C-alpha cells in the first residue's frame, strides 16, 4: 500500500492505463524512440556523467592526463595497503598455474575452463564464492539464437548501444561466442525459460532490435551462478577456493611479468602470497563507491579493487569516464532504496509514466538515454512524485504486464520482484513501482584484447572489471554474456600461457614505483586502496571508537 499522499497520482496512472494498454496491444510503438540528436541532447543535459564535477584528470599511472570519474581517480591516487619492504618475498604460501582473483561468474567460468585446459587453479575471493554481482542479475543474457536474428545484428545493436565506441574485436568475440555460451550453460544444467518446443523464450531488451534476451525467471544470475559454483566445488583437487581473502596487490617478477598476488585474510588479518604463472582479474564492478552519492544495485564487495591492482602494475584503463545508472532503481519503500527493478519489467510491457500518468519516453531506449529522460522528467519538467523523505521518482506501471501477458504473468516470470515488494505490502500486479536511476554498472575498465590479455605479461582480465566491450554504455543482457564469454576465454588463455611461462625472482618494485609517482606528482592523501569493503558505520559510532584501527575504510 502506498501512502495517502501518493493516491491522487496513482489514480491518474489508472486513468491513463486503458489507453496506453490499447496502444501497446495494437503492436504499434507506444512512444517514438529518440533520434541521434535527441539522444545527444538529453544525455549532455541530464546524465550524471556530464555534470561539471563528474570527472577529473588523473595525475599518475598509464592513463595520466585523461579525464576519469572523480571517485575512481581518487581511489587510484591512493596508497597501497602494504609497505613492500615489510614483505619476505621468499616465503611463498601457495604456488599455482592460474590464480583467479574474484569468485563471481567471470572468475568461476575462468577457473572451470583453465582446469579443462590442464591447469591447477586457485580462486581467491573477497566474500564467499558467488557473493557477487553475478548472483544478482535478474533480467537475462543476450544471444542471437532466433532465426530472424544473427550475430551480425547483435553486433549492430551492441555498438549502437555503446555509442559506437566499443572495441570491435571484443564485440565480435561477444556476439560470436554467445550461442556457444548458452549451449555450454545448458549442458552444465542451467534451466532457461523455454516454450513448448524447447526453444528458449526470448524478449526484447532496451536498445535491441531483436528478441534476444534469455532468462531464467527473474533469477537468471542466480540460476547461472549457482550452477557454476556447484561445478567449481565438484573439482576440489584442481580448483582451490580461498574465501574472505581479497587480493590487495599483484606480485611481479624481475622481468616485469605478473606473477600472482598478495591476499589479505579478512579474518586473521594475515597477508598471504600466491605465486602464479597466469593471473586473471575478475573482481567485477564499482557500485559501492557510491559515485555522486547514488544508491547502488551492486553487491557489498563491488569496490573497484581490480582496477587498482591492475593500474598499479601498469595496465591501461579504458572508458573510465562513464558510469551506468540503471533507469529503474527502487525509490519507495525506503528499505529497498536503490534496489534493482529488472529491465525485464519493461520488456514485459511496463511503462514509465510521470505523476500525471503520462508516458514520456519510449520504454526501451538504451539505459543512459532512458535514465537521463527520467532525470529530466523529475528535474526540469518537475513531473516526478516526491516521497516524504524528499526523494523523487516516476512510476513504472507494472500492472500493464498482467493485462498484456495474462493474469499470473508477474508471479510466474518475475517472482523476485513480486516477492521484494510483497515484503512491504505492495502488490505490483495491481500497483505500479516508484523508481529513479541507480548506480549499476562499470562500463569501462582494464583494457584487454579478445584473448583477455592486458598489456602486462601473464595478466588477464575478464567481466565487469574489463573495459571496451560495451563502449560507454552497456545494453541489458550483454554483461552476463560478457563475463561468460570472456571468463571462458581468459581461463583458456591463462592455462595455455601457464604451460610456457618461466617466472623470475619475485618483486614488489611496482608498488614502490607507484608510491614514488604519487610523491612526484605532489599528491598528498591519507587514502588507501583497494577499498575492499565500504564503511557504513555512523559518524556517532566512529567518534566513540577511540582505539579502533582503520586501514582505509576497513577496521
Amino acid at each position, binding site marked *: 500500500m502506498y501512502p495517502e499522499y501518493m493516491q491522487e497520482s496513482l489514480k491518474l496512472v489508472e486513468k491513463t492505463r486503458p489507453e496506453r494498454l490499447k496502444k501497446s496491444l495494437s503492436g504499434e510503438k507506444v512512444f517514438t524512440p529518440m533520434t541521434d540528436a535527441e539522444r545527444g541532447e538529453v544525455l549532455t543535459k541530464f546524465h550524471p556523467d556530464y555534470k561539471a564535477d563528474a570527472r577529473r584528470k588523473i595525475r599518475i599511472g598509464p592513463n595520466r592526463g585523461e579525464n576519469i570519474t572523480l571517485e575512481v581517480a581518487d581511489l587510484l591516487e591512493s596508497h597501497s595497503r602494504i609497505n613492500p619492504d615489510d614483505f619476505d618475498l621468499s616465503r611463498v604460501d601457495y604456488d599455482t598455474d592460474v590464480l583467479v582473483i574474484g569468485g563471481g561468474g567471470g572468475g568461476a567460468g575462468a577457473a572451470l575452463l583453465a582446469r579443462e585446459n590442464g591447469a591447477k587453479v586457485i580462486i581467491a575471493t573477497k566474500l564467499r564464492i558467488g557473493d557477487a554481482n553475478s548472483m544478482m542479475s535478474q533480467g537475462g543474457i543476450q544471444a542471437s539464437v532466433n532465426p530472424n536474428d544473427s550475430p551480425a545484428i547483435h553486433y549492430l545493436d551492441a555498438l549502437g548501444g555503446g555509442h559506437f565506441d566499443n572495441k570491435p574485436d571484443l564485440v565480435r568475440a561477444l556476439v560470436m561466442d554467445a550461442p556457444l555460451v548458452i549451449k555450454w550453460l545448458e549442458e552444465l544444467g542451467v534451466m532457461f525459460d523455454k516454450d513448448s518446443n524447447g526453444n528458449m523464450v526470448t524478449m526484447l531488451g532496451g536498445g535491441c532490435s531483436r528478441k534476444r534476451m534469455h532468462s531464467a525467471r527473474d533469477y537468471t544470475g542466480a540460476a547461472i551462478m549457482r550452477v557454476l559454483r556447484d561445478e567449481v566445488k565438484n573439482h576440489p583437487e584442481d580448483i582451490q577456493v580461498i574465501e574472505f581473502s581479497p587480493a590487495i596487490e599483484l606480485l611481479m617478477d624481475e622481468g616485469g611479468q605478473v606473477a600472482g598476488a598478495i591476499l589479505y585474510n579478512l579474518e586473521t588479518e594475515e597477508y598471504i602470497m600466491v605465486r602464479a604463472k597466469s593471473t586473471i582479474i575478475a573482481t567485477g564492478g564499482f557500485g559501492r563507491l557510491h559515485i555522486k552519492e547514488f544508491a547502488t544495485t551492486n553487491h*557489498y564487495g563491488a569496490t573497484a579493487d581490480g582496477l587498482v591492482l591492475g593500474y598499479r602494475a601498469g595496465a591501461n584503463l579504458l572508458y573510465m569516464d562513464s558510469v551506468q545508472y540503471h533507469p529503474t532503481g527502487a525509490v519507495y519503500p525506503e528499505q529497498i532504496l536503490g534496489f534493482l527493478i529488472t529491465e525485464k519489467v519493461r520488456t514485459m510491457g511496463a511503462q514509465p509514466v510521470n505523476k500525471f500518468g503520462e508516458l514520456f519516453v519510449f520504454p526501451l531506449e538504451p539505459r543512459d538515454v532512458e535514465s537521463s529522460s527520467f532525470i529530466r522528467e523529475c528535474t526540469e519538467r518537475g513531473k516526478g512524485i516526491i516521497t516524504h523523505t524528499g526523494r523523487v521518482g516516476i512510476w513504472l506501471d507494472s500492472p500493464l504486464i498482467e493485462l498484456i501477458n495474462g493474469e499470473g504473468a508477474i508471479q510466474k516470470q518475475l517472482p523476485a520482484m513480486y516477492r521484494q515488494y510483497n515484503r512491504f505490502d505492495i502488490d505490483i500486479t495491481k500497483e505500479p513501482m516508484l523508481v529513479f536511476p541507480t548506480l549499476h554498472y562499470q562500463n569501462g575498465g582494464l583494457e584487454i584484447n579478445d584473448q583477455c590479455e592486458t598489456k602486462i605479461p601473464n595478466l588477464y582480465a575478464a567481466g565487469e572489471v574489463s573495459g571496451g566491450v560495451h563502449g560507454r554504455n552497456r545494453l541489458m543482457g550483454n554483461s552476463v554474456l560478457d563475463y561468460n564469454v570472456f571468463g571462458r576465454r581468459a581461463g583458456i588463455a591463462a592455462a595455455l600461457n601457464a604451460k610456457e611461462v618461466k617466472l623470475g625472482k619475485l618483486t614488489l618494485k611496482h608498488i614502490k614505483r607507484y608510491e614514488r609517482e604519487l610523491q612526484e606528482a605532489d599528491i598528498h592523501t591519507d587514502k588507501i586502496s583497494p577499498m575492499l569493503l565500504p564503511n557504513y558505520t555512523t559518524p556517532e559510532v566512529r567518534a566513540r571508537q577511540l582505539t579502533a584501527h582503520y586501514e582505509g575504510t576497513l577496521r
Partner: protein
Amino acid sequence: MEEKTPSPKAKMISLYIMGKKYEVPEGSTIMGALEYAGYQLKRGCGCREGFCGACATVYRTTDDYKIKTGLACQTVVEPNMYLAQIPFFPANKALYDLDELEPSISTFQEIYPELFRCVSCNTCTKACPQDLEVMDYIQALIRGDIAQAADLSFDCIMCGLCAARCPAEIVQYNVAVLARRLYGKYLSKKGEYLESRLKEIKEHKYDKEIEEFMHMDRESFKKKYYARDIEKM
C-alpha cells in the same frame, strides 16, 4: 543514499543482537540495524538485495516461543527482537560428474541417501525466507519427480536455513541444485534454433558480414544502425 543513514527523525526501538541490547531506528532492515549499532560486517553480508543467501538470520520476539528466520537484508526490525546471524553452516555436498549421472531417483539414492530419511515435519518449509515449499520439493525427489523438485526449488538462494533446522540432516539446497542441473541438462526439451545457429557459426556464415562492420567508417555504420528495423514487443 544507503539504508545505513536513517533520517534523524526516525523513532528508535530496542533489539538484542546476540543477546546484547541496542537502540536502532524503526523501519531499518536487520542488516541496517547491525551496521547502525556499529558492526562492520565481513561475514553474513553479500548482495544486500535478497539474492545470495549470505545473511541468514534466526530470531525470536518476546511474545512468542517460536524461532523465526529471515534474511538480514530483507527483514525489517521489530521491537525487542532477539537475533543472531548464521553466516555459515557446515553442509554436506556430494562431488559428482554430471555427465555420468542419470536423471533418476537412483542417482539421489546413491549420492544423497539421507534424503530418504525425511520425516515430513515441514520445519524446512517454515524456515524458508523465500517462502518455498521446501518439504514438497524434497518429497517430490523421494518420489523421483525431478521436474517438480526443480520447479519448486527454482527460487532457492541457498541461504542454509532449512538445513540448519532439519532433523533428518538433509541439505535441501544442495540436493535441489543437483535436481535442477539434471533437469536442465537431461530432462528439459531442447529446441532447434540453438543447434542450427551453432552450426551456422561453425560454418563461418557470419564472419564476412561482421568483418565488414568492423571496418566500416563510423558514419556509414551509424546510418546502418539507425536504419535497422526493430522487432515488435
